[in-house]
């Protein structure tokens, strides 16, 4: 080995060693682990899915949802009167739905003083004021026998400037406010992406109980430094005097409200029933075939 090659080899060795030694135990380099600063007050933008998110979805509107037959029956049986029961009134939206509602968002980071590492991100959302902690310290998720919560148990890591969050231990929830369920076996994977003053959240729900395929959607916010989120107290009350144990629901085949949505929008009823195929552009061809008048 000549002198020049020795110098090159030594320099390479030092560089590789420095990269290995300089890597924190957590698995990501210090530079990677910083990511981009997501902190701030974020005001929701409703240009996506506005009819579903603000006025609310129609009963029986499952368009574009990759739901299975079990989810369909569950949603068909759902009666909005369920929400008059005191025990149902103060439920917050779960972590996967919360960003979809009136979702003024606050994001802030928790920094360990000694190392100045971000050890957690926190979120607060306006409606019902749910708060989440996203752990950044590589801790494992709890065992299955631990309690499930509305916001679940979240861990995060940076992929470049994208914060990728994995959430388990969710309570049974919903993916649309018309009774379409999401089970407590679901896993939520989210990607927080900041472009200047715009924040985009891509959420990906895997639910082995109610979904045929993962359900993906995006939600956006704009930075709003003057935003002040109000408190959101909730006190359950008896709205309807009923005998104990009554659970409002529609028996199979009796929910006449299911007809309203296809009638109002002149959509074939079959198309409103959801399923994975209704997510894809090819379904338009099938929809057109459904619209053809029956041959005489």
């Amino acid at each position, binding site marked *: 080995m000549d002198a020049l090659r020795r110098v090159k080899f030594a320099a390479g060795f030092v560089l590789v060693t420095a990269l290995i030694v300089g890597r924190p135990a957590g698995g990501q380099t210090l530079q990677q682990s910083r990511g981009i600063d997501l902190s701030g007050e974020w005001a929701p933008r409703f240009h996506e899915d506005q009819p579903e998110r603000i006025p609310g979805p129609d009963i029986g509107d499952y368009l574009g949802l990759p739901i299975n037959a079990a989810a369909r029956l569950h949603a068909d049986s759902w009666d909005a009167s369920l929400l008059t029961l005191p*025990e149902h009134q103060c439920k*917050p939206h779960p972590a996967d739905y919360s960003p979809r509602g009136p979702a003024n968002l606050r994001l802030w980071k928790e920094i360990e003083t000694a190392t100045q590492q971000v050890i957690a991100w926190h979120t607060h959302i306006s409606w019902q004021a749910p708060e989440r902690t996203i752990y950044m310290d590589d801790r494992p998720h709890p*065992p299955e026998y*631990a309690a499930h*919560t*509305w916001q679940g148990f979240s861990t995060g890591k940076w992929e470049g400037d994208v914060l990728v969050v994995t959430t388990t231990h969710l309570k049974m929830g919903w993916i649309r406010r018309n009774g379409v369920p999401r089970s407590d076996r679901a896993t939520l994977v989210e990607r927080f992406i900041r472009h200047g003053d715009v924040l985009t959240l891509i959420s990906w729900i895997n639910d082995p109980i109610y979904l045929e395929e993962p359900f993906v959607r995006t939600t956006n916010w704009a930075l709003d430094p003057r935003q002040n989120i109000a408190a959101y107290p*909730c006190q359950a009350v008896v709205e309807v005097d009923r005998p104990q*144990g009554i*659970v409002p629901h529609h028996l199979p085949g009796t929910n006449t409200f299911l007809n309203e949505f296809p009638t109002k929008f002149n959509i074939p009823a079959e198309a409103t029933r959801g399923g994975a195929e209704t997510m894809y552009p090819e379904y338009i061809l099938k929809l057109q075939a459904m619209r053809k008048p029956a041959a005489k």
Partner: protein
Amino acid sequence: MKKTATGLTRRLWLAFAALALCGVALNGQQRQGRGQGAGTPNPGRGGAPPNLDNVAVHVLPVQGSVYMLVGAGGNVTVQVGKEGVLLVDTSFAQMSDKIVAEVRKLSDKPIRYIVNTHAHPDHIGGNENISKVGSTIGGGNVGADAPTGATIIAHENVLNRMSAPTGTQAPFPVAAWPTDTYVSRQKEVYFNDEAVVIMHQPTAHTDGDSIVYFRRSDVISTGDVFVTTTFPIIDRQRGGSLAGIIKSLNLLLDLAIPRDKQEGGTYLIPGHGRLCDEADLLEYRDMVTIVRDRIDDLVKKGMTLDQVKAAKPTLDYEGRYGAASGPWTTEMFIEAVYNEMRGASAKK
């Protein structure tokens, strides 16, 4: 269906044994697909106890002075304090050493009380072994030397199920029997600076069910009137009924008070499955009630059992609670509810 020597049908015994193995499946594993039963190891058609040698017991702090032990068998609730240890249920006999070992990590005080929520072997199997290592404080008219072992509290129907009339073979040894039974609506114990209310739940999972309410810790140990792993197992041969289970679930809803945002507050340790709060209980109560209403409606329309099964009244909950095979299938649950609804319909 054949009956065993204990009078319980083989299917139901297998069901309890399979429920026992829920803990195995729950040990850090996310179950996928169709409910608990499909993935549950078969405990053996011969009725032999499952091999639990490799099953660990895990401790989950709940709140206050209450802990939840998860392994094989029903969940075990532990309350510890300066006066000693109180256990709710004792799992299978094979798990006793492991349970005692975990209890010893929480407290070196004597085990004073065992409360049995009902008489099934996955909940009372460890009575004899664990009561032996405990002790009751004796004295007064009974005499200081009279009591040995921890006091075993249960509703009298539990004793009736575990014992037998003189001259006949009892299904469980005398040392496993409750030593302190109650016949009233509830029994009260004040232990470790905490009111502990043991409340009878008539004709629910069985006829001898108790729920145990730790008032200061704000934790309720529910026994098998509430589980998160299956549709309710209704031991009709031992006095159980869906109506009783629903009544018990509604009582639990009354007792449980959530903190802000419908989360936490009162915690519930189910007979099997994960730690819960009121919102989880609410989902289960709603499910059971909705399924009851659907089957009742089909019965009132004059449908046969086969027609009711074909109508799939449990479809939306089968992925979560159902089983296509195993000792407590969805069809068996439907059949139990159907028979109860038919009986209720005939009485009207």
